[in-house]
């Protein structure tokens, strides 16, 4: 249920993301989801890929600073109030969200969440019958 997410430090310079995308593409690695957090100097590219170990290897060979973090992916209906319900549960359980990002397709939405207490977060969401999807499912989306 826990999903491995890669974070890559990138300087705010033209073409940096292009190079990462190209490296992963050439290695036959697919990106399922990504987001970029940035300030004026640098950005942190967070992404979920089809082959985490291989991606780490390829990126480190090219001297990128890569770290791995566990995240969860909430699978919920793509409709008003669905996310609010999940967030209320998380907040009520005293879990703090470091960051999150989402993508939706048709009737379903996927929300990737990085909580400060990942076990507790997964536990309360499951208890409340919310669906968390596994990495293997995410990669197939």
């Amino acid at each position: 249920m826990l999903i491995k997410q890669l974070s890559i430090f990138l300087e705010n310079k033209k073409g940096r993301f292009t190079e990462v995308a190209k490296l992963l593409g050439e290695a036959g690695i697919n990106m399922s989801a990504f987001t970029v957090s940035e300030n004026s100097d640098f950005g942190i590219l967070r992404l979920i890929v089809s082959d985490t170990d291989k991606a780490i290897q390829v990126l480190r060979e090219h001297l990128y600073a890569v770290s791995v973090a566990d995240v969860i992916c909430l699978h919920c209906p793509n409709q008003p109030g669905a996310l609010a319900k999940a967030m209320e549960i998380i907040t009520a359980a005293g879990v703090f969200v470091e960051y999150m990002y989402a993508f939706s397709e048709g009737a379903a939405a996927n929300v990737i969440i990085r909580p400060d207490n990942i076990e507790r977060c997964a536990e309360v969401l499951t208890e409340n019958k919310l669906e968390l999807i596994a990495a293997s499912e995410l990669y197939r989306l």
Partner: protein
Amino acid sequence: MYWNETIECMSRDEMRKLQSIRLRRVVEHAYHNSPFYRKKMQEMGLEPGDIQTIDDIVKLPFTVKQDLRDNYPFGLMAVPMSEIVRLHASSGTTGKPIVVGYTRKDLGIWAEAVSRCLYAFGFNRNDLVQVSYGYGLFTGGLGLHAGVENIGGTVIPMSSGNTQKQIQLMHDFGAKGLACTPSYALYLAETIHNSGIPLEEFQLRIGAFGAEPWTENMRKELEEKLNIKAYDIYGLTEISGPGVGGECECQNGTHLWEDHFFPEIIDPVTLQPVEPGQEGELVFTTLTKEGMPMIRYRTRDLTHLIYDKCDCGRTAVRMGRILGRSDDMLIIRGVNVFPSQVESVILELPEFEAHYLIIVDRVNNTDTFQIQVEVRPEYYSDEMNKMLALKKKITNRIQSVVGLQPDIKIVEPRSIERSMGKAKHVIDKRKLS
């Protein structure tokens, strides 16, 4: 182990006597054989007879780097060119290079000085030493080379560059020693780490590092990363080259071989000698050099001298760490900034790599002070807050030490250029425009 116990452990009194004899001789030699020094002394109303003891040295005129440039290439030679057997030159980043000539005897004294350093570091005739200083006009390579041969060790004359091969041969030959600049040693350490060859497979035990100032934190880092003892070897082309002094096993000051290279510390502004032990600019007089004697040569290196007997048993005067160069000092928004201050902060923060680049510029009539740093791989975080906290931490530390707020720019791993020789830590764009 001492290479030359008589000299290295001589009583201060005896050393002063020896220095007095040799000073008289070198002043005599310079006066009679160097038009440059004769003119300088005559302008001050000095004759060789005015110099009787080493204490009289303060009467003599100073020599500065510009004098070497003005007399380019051979104007300061004090012997016929037929006596000169070797030339070296220091890379002139501004203007002409400076050229130094050695007689056969000068080369012998230089090798003697390097030998004393090598013994103080713990080398002997059984050891393989990889010399990764540049060979050529630069004194580093050939200077260390001659020293290793003189003590009967085995020299691996690698010169600088070709880093993969450096590591391969160091590994395959089982080099016990590495001689290069501290910044290149750091680069070699990183390359060894990335090569995947376990450090235990190397025989490396001792590093002889010099040709650029380095800090105590840099020493710790090199000793840890290479599993060695790292020693300072000090020198400058104008005086002979590496080996003017070297540390001993106490790692508490660099012993200067003052029977050949007499050190003084002066106030760089008033040019007066400072009280013993006080900081100031290091000045050398070569007491035995024939080819190109240097009288009271101003090194621009800022340091202090320690005259107490060392725990290693040597009485030879010690030089403290070089705090910077009086001409390396940057004046940014009116504040005096030494790159060594920045370096010491970066090295004491475990989150950052030892490589850095200071970029000074002037934008809208205001000086900018940017420092590029690399975060160590294990400290890169996926959380923006943590990365910004790292940036704030180093900003505050540097501001408190330097007195000026830097604009810290965290750059990608290994994007700061690694140096094969002397590291370039400062780009002052104000000078370019």
